[in-house]
């Protein structure tokens, strides 16, 4: 018994193949008990390739149509939905309920942060924020799997070229960039630290401050080269800071949850500042890590 799926087979199989969208060569023998005969592949291979191309073309012909239909239908549905949603800027919308009221009224005294957004993401809904930091951590780890130099993704020639480029950059440094960076970097760092530490009383906090800090390090690294960046941010410090920041955050938060859930007395009053600092370090490291891995495949 053998089952064949080709142009002559029944509509059901062809329909299945179509729905399936599979572009693999269909297997000609379902039952493979009999010994595979030595087939001469020459004539069939070309035909095979042609058919494959045909199938791929067919797929690419119907796919845009289907996708467009889906997108248009989707947009129409969503448009109807938002027309029926609560009006913009209305004070009586369902979203303005007792939860946001409580955040606004008691946020400052309950979490010690006047910026209610910070109070919410670190105090009230801190578990989400822990997950979010994990996303950042994971993203760096995943980019490392992909781009960290190893024998699979870097050849000797590429390495050599990279070194040559770096040497060239040292000799013919970009003067304009360096001058601008010399003026800007201190201010960026200052601003970043201000945003980072004042997340409780003004807009900002760990995430914004960390990103700005990271951007500052990236600017420094782009202007003054790897060598000078590595003086304060080599691989070792990088991994220590990143892991330490996240560990600090996770452990603090773990204790906080444990205490809170069990109704134990709370001695972590100044926690927001510490957590902001830890989050900021993690985010800054993440951003710089992306940059370093993308440009050199190394930290």
């Amino acid at each position, binding site marked *: 018994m053998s089952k064949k799926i080709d142009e002559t087979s029944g509509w059901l199989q062809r329909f299945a193949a179509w729905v399936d969208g599979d572009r693999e060569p269909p297997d000609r023998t379902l039952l493979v008990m009999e010994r595979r005969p030595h087939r001469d592949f020459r004539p069939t291979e070309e035909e095979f390739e042609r058919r494959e191309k045909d199938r791929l073309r067919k797929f690419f012909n119907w796919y845009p149509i289907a996708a467009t239909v889906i997108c248009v239908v989707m947009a129409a549905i969503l448009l109807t939905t938002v027309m029926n949603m609560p009006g913009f800027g209305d004070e009586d919308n369902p979203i303005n309920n007792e939860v946001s009221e409580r955040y606004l009224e008691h946020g400052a005294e309950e979490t010690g942060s006047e910026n209610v*957004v910070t109070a919410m993401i670190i105090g009230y809904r801190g578990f989400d924020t822990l997950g979010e930091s994990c996303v950042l951590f994971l993203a760096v780890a995943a980019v490392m799997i992909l781009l960290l130099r190893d024998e699979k993704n870097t050849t000797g020639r590429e390495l050599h*070229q990279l070194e040559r480029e770096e040497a060239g950059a040292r000799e013919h440094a970009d003067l304009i960039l360096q001058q601008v960076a010399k003026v800007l970097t201190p201010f960026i760092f200052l601003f970043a630290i201000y945003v980072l530490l004042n997340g409780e009383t003004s*807009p*900002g906090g760990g995430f914004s401050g960390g*990103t700005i800090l990271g951007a500052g390090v990236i600017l420094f690294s782009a202007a003054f080269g790897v060598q000078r960046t590595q003086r304060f941010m080599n691989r070792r410090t990088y991994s220590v800071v990143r892991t330490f920041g996240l560990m600090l955050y996770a452990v603090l938060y773990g204790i906080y949850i444990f205490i809170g859930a069990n109704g134990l007395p709370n001695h972590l009053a100044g926690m927001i500042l510490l957590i902001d600092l830890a989050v900021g370090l993690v985010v800054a490291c993440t*951003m710089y890590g*992306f*940059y370093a891995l*993308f*440009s050199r495949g190394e930290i």
Partner: protein
Amino acid sequence: MIVLEYILLIGLIVCAIAAPLCKRLLAAVIVYMAFSLMMAVLWSLLQSPDLAITEAAVGAGVTSILFFLTLKKVHALKGTHDE
């Protein structure tokens, strides 16, 4: 204020349509950067300064740098071809 709002909203839509249609990838990324900046301004109009700061730093800053580095690696920038 309301005029600015409308300009920004329409600008967002124009950028969103233009970004993927640009022939050169570099142009697409730059238009996307503009999109991010407009978004940041809109967020400060919506009274969310936290979001505005983050979006400006992330969308227009870090994401764009990452896009540019990727463009360089895939040789879509002028003058970066090997040999």
